[in-house]
């Protein structure tokens, strides 16, 4: 079946996780034999969409149609059997097996005797066709992230499924590899197959896709053939109407008097980061942050801001280049539970985490308890006292406590990462006001946020991470949004 019909349709899909709706009456229609691009901001619902299409998640309401017929997936295997193959962002490879073995494992004839030569030939043939460089005999665990991505793609193609879905396949590929893969996908669809590619990169979508669907906050914001839409229209659909209104408070609410900009406090000098898997996370970057300013950082997931922030907070060392750090840097990581607080430790113990590496001798618990007391008062932390465990506090109060801890010794610099994640409007406002106050008091502040409006309300200038590179942009939501998807 090709040409006019739809290979895959998702109609009126709603999916809630607790109180938040990841998808709210969203729809997607993928024409047979087309290369369909699915775009949207972080958290717009793209991956949830893919998970529902492939049977990993059950929708709360809505219908899935395959070649016009309604289907119900009870399990991922149902979708696979019906010819829907997917590559998710999180790899499903066995690290202790070779590439060829992994591909064979996913193959249709599992159970027959494993023929190493045949399996390796299959991988080599597919990799050659697709233009991906891949050694079939290599152990997956030894491969770089980019090579593992290539192995995942080859595995999905080897299933010979008529519909292929790829979640950000180019995110960790080098630009030439990405271009070659997309080019091959074009050829793949011309043979009658259907492909859905999730991407953050607008240029990719416009350059290689047949049709585009944009999700915004769980709803379908745009659905059109590429030929009848424009880059501007797509960007507008991704970002939505800019409403800075309710968020412009932070700047106005900051009561402290703005100082004039101080000297350079934090700086990167041609610093780059290559992670343990060998992937280049941050290309050579220079950046200077002065006392009294808030530098906002924007970027889609995995664009390098994670490493940028940790370099500036002194939590990791650059692979090359240099970092200038003041004696004291406050750091508020995005994931409170993983990185900032120990849930069943008392607030006093959690307060003592800051600077723990330099502590010697006997712990001054009484003194730390006083710090907790004054943090609770100064930051209006509610729901707990000195003896409570961190888990007794609500998310917003935990975040206030973390910020209070990091600011307790009036650090010369403050690095915060998505500080309002999971907080309600009121708590978010309080946090952002504190961040601005800190800059007003002379600190050099760096703040990453996945919410552009939050950056506009808080930052004095903004840098954007894209594919490991850091650019400065104007303080303008369109400009930031474009830079985040690689359009400058």
């Amino acid at each position, binding site marked *: 079946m090709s040409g006019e019909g739809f290979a895959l349709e998702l109609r009126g899909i709603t999916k809630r996780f607790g109180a938040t709706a990841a998808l709210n009456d969203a729809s997607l229609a993928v024409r047979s034999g087309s290369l369909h691009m699915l775009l949207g901001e972080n958290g717009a619902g793209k991956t949830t969409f893919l998970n529902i299409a492939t049977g990993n998640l059950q929708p709360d309401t809505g219908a899935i149609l395959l070649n016009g017929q309604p289907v119900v997936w009870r399990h991922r295997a149902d979708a696979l059997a019906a010819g829907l193959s997917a590559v998710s962002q999180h790899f499903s490879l066995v690290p202790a097996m070779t590439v060829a073995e992994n591909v064979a494992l996913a193959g249709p004839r599992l159970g027959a005797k494993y023929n190493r030569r045949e399996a390796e030939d299959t991988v080599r043939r597919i990799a050659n066709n697709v233009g991906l460089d891949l050694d079939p005999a290599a152990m997956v665990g030894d491969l770089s992230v980019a090579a593992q991505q290539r192995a995942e793609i080859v595995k999905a193609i080897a299933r010979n499924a008529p519909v292929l879905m790829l979640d950000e396949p180019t995110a960790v590929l080098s630009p030439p590899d990405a271009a070659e893969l997309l080019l091959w996908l074009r050829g793949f669809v011309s043979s009658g197959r259907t492909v859905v590619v999730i991407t953050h990169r607008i240029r990719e979508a416009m350059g290689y896709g047949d049709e585009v669907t944009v999700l915004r906050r769980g709803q379908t914001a745009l659905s059109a053939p590429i030929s009848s839409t424009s880059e501007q229209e797509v960007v507008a659909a991704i970002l939505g109407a800019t409403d800075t209104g309710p968020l412009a408070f932070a700047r106005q609410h900051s009561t402290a008097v703005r100082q004039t900009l101080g000297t350079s406090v934090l700086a990167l000098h041609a610093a780059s980061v290559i992670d343990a898997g060998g992937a280049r996370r941050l290309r050579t970057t220079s950046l200077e942050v002065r006392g009294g300013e808030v530098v906002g950082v924007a970027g889609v997931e995995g664009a390098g801001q994670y490493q940028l922030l940790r370099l500036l907070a002194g939590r990791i060392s650059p692979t090359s280049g240099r970092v200038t750090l003041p004696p004291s840097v406050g750091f508020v990581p995005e994931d409170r539970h993983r990185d*900032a607080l120990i849930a069943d430790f008392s607030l006093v113990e959690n307060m003592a985490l800051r600077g723990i590496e330099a*502590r010697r001798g006997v*712990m001054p618990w009484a003194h730390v308890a006083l710090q907790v007391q004054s943090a609770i008062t100064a930051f209006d932390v509610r729901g707990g006292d000195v003896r409570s465990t961190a888990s007794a506090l609500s998310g917003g109060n935990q975040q206030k406590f973390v910020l209070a801890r990091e600011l307790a010794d009036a650090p010369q610099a403050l690095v915060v990462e998505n500080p309002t994640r999971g907080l309600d409007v009121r708590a978010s406002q309080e946090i952002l006001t504190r961040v601005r106050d800190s800059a007003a008091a002379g600190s050099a502040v760096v703040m990453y946020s996945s919410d552009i409006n939050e950056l506009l309300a808080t930052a004095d200038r903004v840098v954007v991470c894209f594919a490991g590179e850091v650019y400065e942009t104007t303080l303008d939501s369109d400009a930031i949004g474009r830079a985040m998807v690689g359009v400058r």
Partner: protein
Amino acid sequence: MSLLRRLSAGVAPALVVLAAIAVVALVMMVTGFDPVAAARAAVRGAVGSEFALFSATLKRTTPLLMLGLAVAVAFRAGVLNIGADGQFLAGAAAACAFGLAVGDAVGRSVLLGALAVGILAGALWAGVAAWLKRRFNVMEVVSTLLLNFVALNLVGFLVRGPLQEPTGAYPASATLLSAARLPLLLDGQRLHVGFVFSVGLAIAAWWFFRSTAAGFQIRVTGASRTVAASAGRLDVDGVQMWSLVASGAIAGLAGACEVTGVTYALYEGLSPGYGYTAIATALLGGLNPLGIIMSAALFGALGAGADAMQRDAGVPAEFATVVTALVVLGVLAVPGVMKNWARITGRGEQ
């Protein structure tokens, strides 16, 4: 922490022990042994007389308490040291070799030297696993366990070779001279000064974890490596490495105390699995040094009782090992059980 949870922290282990004993009593009945007679003999053998209390129960409590503390130091740092038994043997062998070599040439100092050498040997034995973990990322569960067998066979070699007693008749070392022996605590009883060391060490460990920066660093690392390295900037690999070495040092001291305080000679059966029972001891004590004093006394009594049970009631001592094993399983299951219970009754904290 609510009062309920504070109470249950003490009550749950007691319930686990009682349940384990009940299960074993049931098995005794099914297999044709008389659990009442067994219990009577066990209680008499553990606490029935001064001799039972001091020369059997508390004498056994000493190595279990020290080894339990050793295990707790590592576990608190998030390092699973399964090798206390091997570190114990390394400490015992080194202390014995030192004591025999020096003899009574330097008077009482030989004892201090032997204990110091035991500590060092235990630390080195654990240090091998610590280095393998740091350098090659070898799981300490595997390396420490395997080093137990190396230590056991090393002792076997020593007592048949370089350290064998002069007549060459037995696979054991010569006997330590009195200068190298730990003083006994009570006349006519076998309890030695090492018991005082072990209790003192427990109190010191309790203070260490509660009040010192190093103790706090270990607790934080064990609770969350990511928080330790992100909220703090701790070198978590380094903390874990040194915790394992310290754990081995304490286990080495336990071995040195056993050979200078109880056996006065080295032989292969020196540890009847003390290092493994110590894991149960540490877990039952909630990794809290004061709790470990209680659980070590309990397992000391259990071991002494098991011997008496076999001797006086003809019930195999292995039943006591089953109790130990069931206690470990029970203690590990408690958090999960409590969580389920909280969910069912709707009294969870969140």
